[in-house]
């Protein structure tokens, strides 16, 4: 089976000085597979995701290759990419507080994604929206659909965002830290929801996070990104049991705090990996 998403030697640079922030990343994603992408803030993981979606700012320079279902995306014009977004690939954002337009009832926002890609009557669209809102576990979808974002809780909003991303049954869903802004109990619920919904739709997932523990709940394989380089990739078990890169060893140690004997100092990533050139 050929991979759904194949990224080869992806390089991303910004601005006039063309400062490179992603240095030749290569990875692939099989249909139905879930791939974690781990890294700290500024490591280039979100930029990589935005490059796949074709949503980088205009001062970004992307080179290399991004193939989605055999189709090259790098160099496509925005008008050629827009029909793919929301249909073949979609995205779940980090901040449910800001990812919904405050001036529009959420039902209309979900319907917008549907109507952009499918020729449906408004009545049919409304029915489908209510269906999807119920699917993502929102009680009373009628009321939620007519509510403005500020009237919903963080967990409810993130469910709406998930509904928006999945309504067109995309092949690829990119989740950019979808649970970071939620509190821990809601986090677990949203992860479960993503798990079942991705399964139901049969979508592949590129799951971005800085939390190895969260990624391990959802993904089979994981990539580790550090300062714009992919320093490690492998199955969850490989990375947990036999991490190659010292940075990954640090991540694994900090994700397994239960292994630390009481009274001992908790490990930090710096215990394992001293960043070169750090002041």
């Amino acid at each position, binding site marked *: 089976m050929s991979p759904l998403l194949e990224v080869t030697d992806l390089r991303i640079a910004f601005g006039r000085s063309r400062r490179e922030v992603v240095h030749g990343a290569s990875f692939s994603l099989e249909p139905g597979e879930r791939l974690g992408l781990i890294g700290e803030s500024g490591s280039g993981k979100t930029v990589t995701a935005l490059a796949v979606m074709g949503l980088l700012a205009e001062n970004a320079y992307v080179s290399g290759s991004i193939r989605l279902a055999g189709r090259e995306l790098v160099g496509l014009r925005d008008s050629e990419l827009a029909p793919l977004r*929301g249909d073949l690939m979609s995205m779940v954002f*980090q901040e449910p507080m800001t*990812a*919904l337009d*405050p001036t529009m009832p959420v039902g209309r926002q979900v319907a917008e994604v549907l109507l*952009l890609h499918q020729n449906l009557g408004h009545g049919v669209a409304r029915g489908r929206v209510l269906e999807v809102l119920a699917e993502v576990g929102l009680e009373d979808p009628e009321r939620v659909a007519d509510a403005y974002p500020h009237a919903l809780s963080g967990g409810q909003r993130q469910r709406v965002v998930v509904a928006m991303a999945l309504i067109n049954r995309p092949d690829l869903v990119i989740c950019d830290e979808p649970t970071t802004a939620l509190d821990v109990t809601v986090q677990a619920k949203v992860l479960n929801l993503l798990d079942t919904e991705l399964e139901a739709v049969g979508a592949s997932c590129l799951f971005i996070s800085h939390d190895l523990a969260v990624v391990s709940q959802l993904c089979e394989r994981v990539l580790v990104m550090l300062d714009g380089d992919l320093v490690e990739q492998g199955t969850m078990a490989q990375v947990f049991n036999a991490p190659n890169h010292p940075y990954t060893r640090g991540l694994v140690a900090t994700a397994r705090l239960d292994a630390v004997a009481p009274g001992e100092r908790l490990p930090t990533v710096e215990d394992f990996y001293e960043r070169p050139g750090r002041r």
Partner: protein
Amino acid sequence: MRRAGLWIGVVLVAVVILAALVSLVWTPYDPLQIQPAQTLQPASWRHLLGTDGFGIDILSRLLVGARTTVYVGVVAVSLAALGGVPLGVLAGMRGGWVSEIVLRVSDILYAFPALLLAILLAAAVGASTGTAMVAIGIASIPAFARVARAATLIVMTQDYILAARASGTSRWIVSVRHVLPNIAAVLGVQASVSFGIAILAEAALSYLGLATPPPTPTWGRMLHDAQTYIFTSPIQALWPGLAIALSVLGLNLLGDGLRDHLDPRLREAA
């Protein structure tokens, strides 16, 4: 206290609009009929604000003048918004050289006062209500363009714009469905401030005879006519002057009040 400002503004503006509406169906006396026997009457029960040098009831003229003022203001502000908002949103969304061009063109327009533009237009096609509206409208475009651009820049950094784009929404639809509704509040504030400026400009232009030609009463012309009697009957100049000052004050209070009311940080403090 801030609330009080907003409400005073609302009341003053409502009075002006009400006056304009009332003048459409009723005025105490004919605002155009010259009455040589009645000139320069003081205020009385027959003439609440007295009569002017032509013997015409001042209240009647003020009411009809409000109509011109509101008409010119609404059309001029609409023109300015129609011209400035799309430019500003475009500049804010595209950035780069598009933004530079819009900013420089609005700088050039800024340098042209409404007065100069009105003189040019009046010389070319003759003074009329229309030339005043166009001149004031064009002169107000840059303010709208700049405010719309600044507000758009802020909105564009929000995730919901990215989310809409990630759903496949084109730039054009994003601007209409997501950017405009989110900057509408700021534009409303700008509209009320621009309205005040337009009233002042209209009064200045009609005072100079560059706007609505006689005999239609306007506040600016009433001020001009009252000038003749400034030493014998100074109260003549007071009424149109007060009307202009209070309506401009009302619109500015309304604009300030709206801005405070719509700013969530200030709302929390209240």
